[in-house]
């Protein structure tokens, strides 16, 4: 279709290569560099000179070696075999690379993104004569127990099916159907399709998000929930819990598909996911987490240009799953490394630097990326169907300073801000998410859902909890100035209740088998019990019970154990126990 262009290398600077004789080469087309044919992408065209970012190490490449412009944009392969896989930033499967080059990743490995030999059981759901257009499903493959892969007509094709195979076992290269357009062109529909990573996949229209993405994490679900199709950022200094939070979301959020992008972070963290996910169960379906997860790992020491591409590879896959009508969650850890990759490439191009050395287009790239999230009405000629992509991006601000450009430009776009703080992390208050600084803009559209599905009083409990945390904050300031002596007994009760809320509710241990996931129902009961006890403490105090005596009661030992309690019934009976406490259980001091 598109013709190849052959040029010659004239300059090499790290991942950036320039070649002349490239007249006719297009921006974002893939180029093969040097005698080794390293993979790169054209990122600038000026006359007959093309600037290419190379996805592999350029050591040993010389000026004068050839460059071939392939005429094809950088794309991903989308079809059965994609689920449970782990790819590098340009969708090369890491297990296959390992088979070729061993434990260390070598250059110039060529492996298809999807297994071309494997036969899948295709269930054909369309027939000859059907008039179809982009997004219509012609077949399904039960790819994993948790994932029904829908084989769709690619977005840009429409017409009438003039040939179709029977249901059966085929490889993904099998021509499943032939579609004839009105102008008579025939399109072969294979088991997979390709899509250029830098172009958002089309949909019919955007829809408002009105359902929460439940995460099983109390601080998120109760206080700062994200909607399905929403976008959230989780910035924080090193070691505060970005990765643990992203892993928790990947494990427990109630999306049907998870795309996890390890972008410029640690190798061991990806290994951790690879070792854990095949053994962990999805709390919603009970099936193995790996069966709904696909991963991209372009770790910090892997080529920086491929890191730049990795988030696009990830989001394109996420959109493809969305187009099948699924709720997809995509995690990117960390978007700062992606931004830094852009900065590094831009520096090599000697572009005019903007703030902190980032290119001037940083803000628009970040915005465009998060814009690819959302809840939409998907392409489809028959009925109204929806799908969503929720995006949760980690941000790693230098020195933990949120005023830096990546954090700021991200906050301008996202609707949920989960602020990790060093202070809480050092107190080992995990998740170290600031309950005072964080926010969500989705609560108003979600609260009815909470009311309907979880509990009537959720909004009320939540509001009370916020108020208590604020009061606590004000009182703590007084303590810091004049010492705890200055507080009245009523204020001490408030502090005590706030302590329970912080320690026994907000703190959630990601590594505890029970506490790691907390259902919204359980969240409601835990909150209810804390406030029941708070009210009871005030009542007892008014009846003349001394605070210290009160605190000796064993009920106070039961509150911290709630989070480790798997049975909600036990939390209900604890509530009764709290209600039953009366001044008669205590010695009364009469004044």
């Amino acid at each position: 279709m598109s013709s190849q262009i052959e040029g010659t290398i004239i300059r090499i600077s790290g991942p950036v290569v320039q070649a002349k004789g490239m007249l006719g080469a297009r921006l974002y087309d893939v180029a093969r560099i040097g005698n080794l044919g390293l993979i790169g992408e054209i990122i600038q065209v000026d006359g007959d000179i093309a600037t290419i970012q190379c996805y592999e190490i350029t050591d040993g490449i010389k000026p004068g070696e050839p460059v071939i412009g392939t005429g094809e944009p950088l794309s991903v392969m989308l079809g059965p075999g994609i689920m449970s896989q782990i790819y590098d930033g340009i969708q090369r499967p890491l297990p296959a690379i390992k088979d070729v080059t061993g434990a260390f990743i070598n250059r110039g490995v060529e492996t298809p993104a999807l297994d071309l030999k494997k036969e899948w059981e295709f269930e054909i759901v369309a027939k000859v004569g059907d008039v179809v257009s982009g997004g219509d499903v012609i077949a399904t493959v039960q790819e994993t127990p948790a994932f029904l892969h829908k084989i769709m007509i690619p977005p840009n094709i429409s017409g009438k099916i003039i040939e179709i195979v029977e249901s059966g076992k085929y490889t993904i290269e099998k021509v499943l159907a032939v579609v004839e357009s009105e102008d008579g062109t025939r399109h072969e529909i294979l088991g997979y399709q390709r899509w250029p990573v830098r172009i958002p996949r089309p949909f019919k229209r955007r829809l408002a998000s009105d359902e929460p993405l439940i995460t099983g994490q109390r601080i998120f679900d109760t206080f700062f929930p994200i909607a399905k199709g929403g976008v959230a950022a989780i910035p924080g200094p090193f070691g505060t819990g970005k990765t643990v939070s992203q892993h928790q979301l990947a494990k427990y959020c109630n999306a049907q598909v998870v795309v996890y992008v390890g972008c410029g972070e640690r190798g061991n963290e990806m290994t951790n996911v690879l070792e854990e996910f095949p053994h962990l169960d999805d709390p919603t379906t009970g099936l193995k987490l790996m069966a709904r997860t696909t991963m991209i790992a372009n770790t910090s020491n892997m080529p920086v240009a491929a890191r730049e591409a990795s988030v696009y590879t990830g989001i394109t896959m996420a959109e493809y799953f969305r187009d099948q009508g699924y709720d997809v969650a995509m995690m990117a850890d960390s978007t700062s490394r992606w931004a830094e990759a852009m900065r590094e490439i831009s520096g090599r191009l000697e572009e005019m630097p903007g703030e902190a050395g980032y290119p001037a287009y940083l803000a628009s790239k970040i915005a465009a990326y998060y814009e690819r999230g959302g809840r939409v009405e998907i392409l489809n000629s028959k009925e109204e169907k929806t799908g969503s992509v929720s995006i949760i991006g980690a941000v790693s601000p230098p020195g933990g300073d949120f005023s830096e450009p990546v954090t700021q430009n991200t906050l301008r776009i996202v609707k949920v801000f989960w602020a990790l703080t060093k202070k809480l992390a050092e107190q080992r208050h995990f998740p170290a998410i600031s309950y005072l600084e964080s926010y969500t803009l989705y609560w108003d559209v979600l609260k009815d859902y909470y009311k309907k599905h979880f509990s009537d009083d959720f909004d009320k409990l939540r509001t009370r909890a916020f108020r208590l945390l604020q009061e606590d904050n004000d009182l703590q300031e007084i303590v810091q100035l004049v010492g705890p002596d200055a507080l009245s007994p009523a204020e001490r009760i408030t502090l005590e209740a706030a302590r329970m809320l912080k320690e026994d509710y907000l703190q959630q241990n990601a590594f505890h088998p029970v506490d790691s996931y907390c259902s919204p129902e359980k969240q409601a009961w835990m909150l209810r019990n804390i406030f029941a006890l708070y009210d009871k403490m005030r009542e007892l105090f008014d009846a003349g019970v001394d605070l210290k005596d009160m605190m000796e009661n064993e009920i106070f030992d039961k509150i911290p154990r709630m989070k480790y309690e798997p049975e909600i019934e036990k939390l209900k009976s604890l509530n009764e126990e709290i209600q039953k406490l009366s001044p008669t259980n205590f010695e009364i001091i009469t004044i």
Partner: protein
Amino acid sequence: MSVKNELKSYKTVREVSGPLLFVDLQGRGGVSYGEICEVVTGYGERRRGQVLEITNDLAVVQVFEGTSGLDTKETSVRFIGQTLQIGVSEEMLGRVFNGRGIPIDGGPQIISEEKRDIAGNPLNPVAREYPRSFIQTGISTIDALLTLVRGQKLPLFSGSGLPHNQVGAQIARQAKVLGEGESFAVVFAAMGITAEEARFFQSDFERTGALEKVVLFLNLADDPAVERIITPRIALTVAEYLAFEKDYHVLVILTDMTSYCESLREIGAAREEVPGRRGFPGYLYSDLSTIYERAGRIIGKKGSITQIPILTMPNDDLTHPIPDLTGYITEGQVYIDRALHRKGVYPPINPLPSLSRLMKEAIGKGSTRVDHAALASQLYAAYARGRELRDLVAVVGEESLSDEDRLYLNFAQQFEDRFISQGYEEDRSIFDTLDLGWELLTIFPNPKRQLKRIDEELIEKFYPLNRDPNYNFHDVNA
């Protein structure tokens, strides 16, 4: 191929700038990116350099030994058609090399078993094995609260004048895995440290008889700064060989990473790159990761690489780009604290800003002891509370404290004096460390109430006053 060498010799240095040479290639080409060259001065001295940027006409070369004495007239540059490699061999154990990998101990040349590119290739995440085995360092604060794990990268964050070298040497000397007699080696890379510091390490290794299991690479303060760029890479190339070909458990000590980063900054400045924070190049994170990520374990291989990079934080500033970016890559950090040092505490490790991210999977029944995690969490919380109250006392006076508060104050003091403090030669077993922690917790007379981070069952069994005298607590399965 045979004409390559003549073809690639140039006497056309256009400019000398900082550590860089700009060589006019006169359109002859044939030089590759990353290629190594030999630079010969007017008076016949040979140096080595590497191509940082290349066009048909121009090669930008960084000279490892520095550019002093180089000129545009007499200096000649010969490109040797290879990227930077080092010969590796088991024979390197017990030997001392300069920062470029050349022996400086007067011993014989190394006959290498294999030549390897020092840049190394990234380890495939699917080939990694998640690090899980506990390394006992014999230092209580580390073992109990910041457990070091085989295959981990755990830096020491320090400041000038603090005893980080002592801590590093003590770890190297005492590190062991319980109940295993496997081969252990240390690869030590010095970058820009003083001759005295280097001597300290060397004599410490010698004194303890460890030297024959140590490979030393020394780039000292008065050695060329650019050489520092390659020293850690050479060291890690040797470490990878020892670990993944020869089954050694290798502990790599890299000191001082601050000098390394400063060299990188110098080169960036000479190339007139757009600087990032505090003048460091924007790619500092990526560059450091190609060093730190070379720690780990590989599925099916016996050996491992554990890294202890040491860095001195300029002005003790944790937000300085060097500790900051390091912390973003490594798996935790051990914070050497000036205030503790001033109080005379050795090793002055402050657990509060420190963290070992791989700890949780490497401790507990079977590897250390069942009470480890809970005890660590309790010690940490009690110490944090004690320090907080100490600060409060400084503002509002001790009078406003409750009796309970005073227990915490006392605990913090005892914890510093007895738990954190230990001798430079003192090698505590993990059991002694954990038991010492329990002993300190007896400051709290009502454990079930006051030790909230520890399950009742564990208190039942391990709280000193509850202990069964006939039971063996010094066992990983206790």
